């Protein structure tokens, strides 16, 4: 069941009837991961994508980014190309022979950012994610939490309009999670659009303007957080009810 909030702003990201089948195993057995996903993410949304493990959240994001090709359906991005998109992968792993600073600079180079601008942005982002002290250490010496933070920094190096974060709170202590939440809120204040996957529903409740719940490769509910809260006492209860139905 999908519900439209009736927004007048055009969607920044529109996914319609998205299907994805992959061939798994030695015998190349086809497995349908996405069975018709419909999503609308509007400008300046903080959009939460929820669902149990294996529901297809990560696959949806990868298909939006072009890391996977849809078997059917469409993805319409209201941006010229990926130069205005930032992405943090789940359980990020980066180039462990680079330092934090080198890595962010490399990411900036991939966007074609000019050297002076790049230098300034790298310094600012390192400060924002609290990694100034570790900037010149090799990534192989970073803890999981530090890797998560450098991952968020690289997702923002190009000052993106749309930021896709796959499980951004994973591996972070409460202080780290607080900092990420502040980053997401600041992004929204600056007019950016954020879409993130998370299992931590309290964070979703605190940050998101709209949510979608995916189960078994389809979106079973989509709407604003207040709409969800109107149907249950807590977001956890709402989520469990939708998943169970």
């Amino acid at each position: 069941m999908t519900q439209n909030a009736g927004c007048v702003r055009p969607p920044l990201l529109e996914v319609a009837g998205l299907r994805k089948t992959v061939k798994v195993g030695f015998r190349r057995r086809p497995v349908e991961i996405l069975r018709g996903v419909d999503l609308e993410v509007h400008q300046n949304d903080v959009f939460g994508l929820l669902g149990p493990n294996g529901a297809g959240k990560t696959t949806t994001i990868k298909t939006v980014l072009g890391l996977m090709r849809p078997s059917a359906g469409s993805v319409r991005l209201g941006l010229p190309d990926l130069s205005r998109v930032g992405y943090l992968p789940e359980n990020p792993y980066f180039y462990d022979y680079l330092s934090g600073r080198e890595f962010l600079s490399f990411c900036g180079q991939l966007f074609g950012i000019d050297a002076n601008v790049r230098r300034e942005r790298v310094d600012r982002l390192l400060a924002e994610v609290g990694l100034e002290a570790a900037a010149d250490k090799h990534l192989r010496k970073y803890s999981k939490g530090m890797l998560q933070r450098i991952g968020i920094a690289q997702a923002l190096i190009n000052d993106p309009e749309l930021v896709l974060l796959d499980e951004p709170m994973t591996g972070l202590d409460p202080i780290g999670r607080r900092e990420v939440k502040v980053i997401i809120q600041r992004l929204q204040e600056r007019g950016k659009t954020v879409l993130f996957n998370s299992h931590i529903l309290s964070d979703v409740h605190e940050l998101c303007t709209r949510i979608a719940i995916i189960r078994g490769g389809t979106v079973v509910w989509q709407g604003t957080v207040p709409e969800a809260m109107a149907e249950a006492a807590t977001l956890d209860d709402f989520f469990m009810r939708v998943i169970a139905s």
Partner: protein
Amino acid sequence: MKQVGAIALNTFKETIRDRVLGIIVVFALIMIAGGLWLGSISLGEGGRMMKDFGLVAVTLFGLIVAVFVAAGLIHKEVEKRTVFVLFSKPVSRTAFIVGKFLGLCATMAIVMAGMAAFLFVLVWIVDGGFSGMLLLAVLLIYAQLLVIIAVTIFFSTLGSAILASVLGICVFVAGQLSHNVLSLSRLGQNAATEALSWVVYVIIPNLSAVDVKPAVVGEQVVAWSSVGVWLVYLGAYVVVCLGLAVAVFRRKEF
């Protein structure tokens, strides 16, 4: 172009900082130095022995580095999922493949320069002079290894890194025997085997068409025009391999 440069520089840093590379180079230097001992038992032909076996060592260890590093380049990015970082940005698959290739070319240049410099010093000690032919021989070995890198990168887009490295070595060996395949094609009893042999002859890179080792040891003169044409051929071969690698890699999903 900037992306190609960024990926090439990143690949260079990745490969040159690999400790295993340093160990391989140390073994190479030991083997090159072994030419001194061979020279001591050669009754005054130390210079020739040093050059000959020094070049064999440079070729062998250059091949090991080229094949094993090239085979793992793409595989590592997919295994470690750093491809997500790359291709979630406006980075084309072409820029990725070309950047990886160029980065490894830079690393190979450093490795070859190190081994060659050591060989030159030893030859200078034994023979008392600097050999321009020796420098040319090293440059031509480097050119051959660039082809092998491109071939191995292509194989690595198709399957596992181990398979790619084995095939890379096989192609190098086959490339040294290219003229044998041509002879075989001309000995064919029927048109089908002749045609097949000819196809194989064209597909395998001709790595022995220009061979300056006899010139290095003073036995022959180099035909410069043939060197130039051969280098153009090798360059074209590299472009074809990388093009095929891009075509395969474009189909990949992550």
